[in-house]
């Protein structure tokens, strides 16, 4: 039942699956893994359903002790991993014997790693999901040292491969594909070309809600207030300061500042791996 003991959490470790759907009309956001593709991959590696819950590890520092033999995989950020004190690989199926420790160090590249455990992290779901929504407080609390995590019944399927040939998140500038709109017409003609021509730095004021970006200001042409409207992950929302925020998994359900462009979903996963200080550039979708 309580099969994993949390020994250390690093800056932030949360339980995440693919989030809550069907409840946006009552103010509940999707939440879920910030880099959904990496959680899916981790689950596939251990034979889970893609939507099983795992642990999202922010900038490493998570340590766990297995209380029975477990099969796990770590994907996403390139963390140095140890199992029972020995180095182990990311994007690979790992056996963690009862009593031994799994540690994830600070990643050299990327910011979020995903731990899947065969059977899935089996905390109590809230509104159909085990995800921690850091904005609304729904779902389990972030992991704390000493917590015990239950692991669910292993699936029928067995892992199909031992290792997934995936490259680590890049360390240099990230180029993200955007589609202009829905409120590009609330900005000056220059604003969109400024966005597409500029380089934006990920500031430390970035979390699962969104990444505050530092770069060329995007000037509005309309001064009136936008009635709040629904938001999505990947939206580049521009507050009065003119510096865009790139929304991630725990973004507010609605927002009252205009969205100049939206990052395509495949690139939202890549954006979620950007580290403070890293630079983003935006390219218009063809």
């Amino acid at each position, binding site marked *: 039942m309580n099969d994993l003991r949390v020994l250390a959490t690093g800056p932030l470790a949360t339980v995440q699956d693919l989030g809550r759907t069907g409840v946006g009309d009552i*103010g509940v956001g*999707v939440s879920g893994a910030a880099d959904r593709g990496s959680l899916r991959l981790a689950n596939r590696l251990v034979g889970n359903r893609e939507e099983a819950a795992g642990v999202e590890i922010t900038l490493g520092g998570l340590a766990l002790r297995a209380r029975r033999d477990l099969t796990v995989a770590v994907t996403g950020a390139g963390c140095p991993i140890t199992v029972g004190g020995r180095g182990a690989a990311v994007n690979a199926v790992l056996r963690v014997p009862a009593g031994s420790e799994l540690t994830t160090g600070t990643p050299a590249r990327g910011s979020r790693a995903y731990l899947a455990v065969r059977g899935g992290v089996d905390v109590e779901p809230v*509104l159909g999901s085990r995800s921690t929504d850091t904005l609304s407080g729904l779902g389990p609390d972030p992991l704390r040292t000493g917590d015990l995590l239950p692991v669910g019944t292993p699936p029928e399927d067995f892992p199909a491969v031992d290792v997934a040939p995936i490259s680590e998140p890049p360390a240099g500038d990230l180029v993200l594909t955007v589609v202009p709109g829905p409120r590009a017409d609330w900005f000056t003609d220059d604003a969109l070309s400024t966005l597409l021509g500029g380089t934006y730095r990920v500031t430390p004021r970035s979390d699962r809600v969104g990444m505050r970006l530092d770069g060329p200001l995007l000037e509005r042409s309309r001064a009136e207030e936008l009635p709040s409207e629904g938001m999505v992950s990947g939206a580049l929302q521009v507050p009065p300061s003119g510096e865009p925020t790139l929304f991630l998994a725990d973004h507010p359900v609605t927002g009252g500042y205009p969205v100049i462009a939206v990052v395509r979903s495949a690139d939202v996963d890549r954006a979620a791996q950007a580290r403070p200080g890293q630079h983003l550039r935006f390219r218009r979708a063809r």
Partner: protein
Amino acid sequence: MRILPLADAGLLVELDDLESVHALYAALSRSRLPGVTNLVPAARTLLLQLDPRHADPAELERVVRGTSPVPGGVPEKELVRVPVVYDGADLGEVAELTGLTEREVISEHTGTDWTVAFGGFAPGFGYLAGGPPELEVPRRSESRTRVPRGAVGLAGRFSGIYPRSSPGGWRLIGRTELEIWRTDRQPPALLRPGVRVRFEEAR
């Protein structure tokens, strides 16, 4: 109707007014829409959030344009009665701002049925519209760091009930014991868009 894409993650349907939003929301809530993960009604828009792996935006846009709105919004026209003790910290200020007496504020607040326009501020929160124009007051100039669960407030032309304790800038006129939000209940939120709300004075 204007339909604006949010890359491959959403379709934002822009409509003339809140009634049209509710009518389309009510119609689409009954439809099977493959790849649509959420419907988010707002003041003048309805957002269809999409699962990009399963949604076909062009086909969904065709479906939205071909949908007959359900006039009047939610079919059941549910009425939620909310008992309120009117002892809020800002009741006197609201009376001053509106030029009414405190008793008159209470009778205005209880005298009209409100309608949940949309959510969005927090899980379970509903922006209640359709109240008397006399009660229109600006938000507080400074937010409170903690407003208790069940606090009933006014801001702009809306009334609202805090589903849980949180920071907030609405002018508080009372409190209710009614649990408008419980994640272990079906439905978790009593205040869904289109639901009518009647405030009743509790003593």
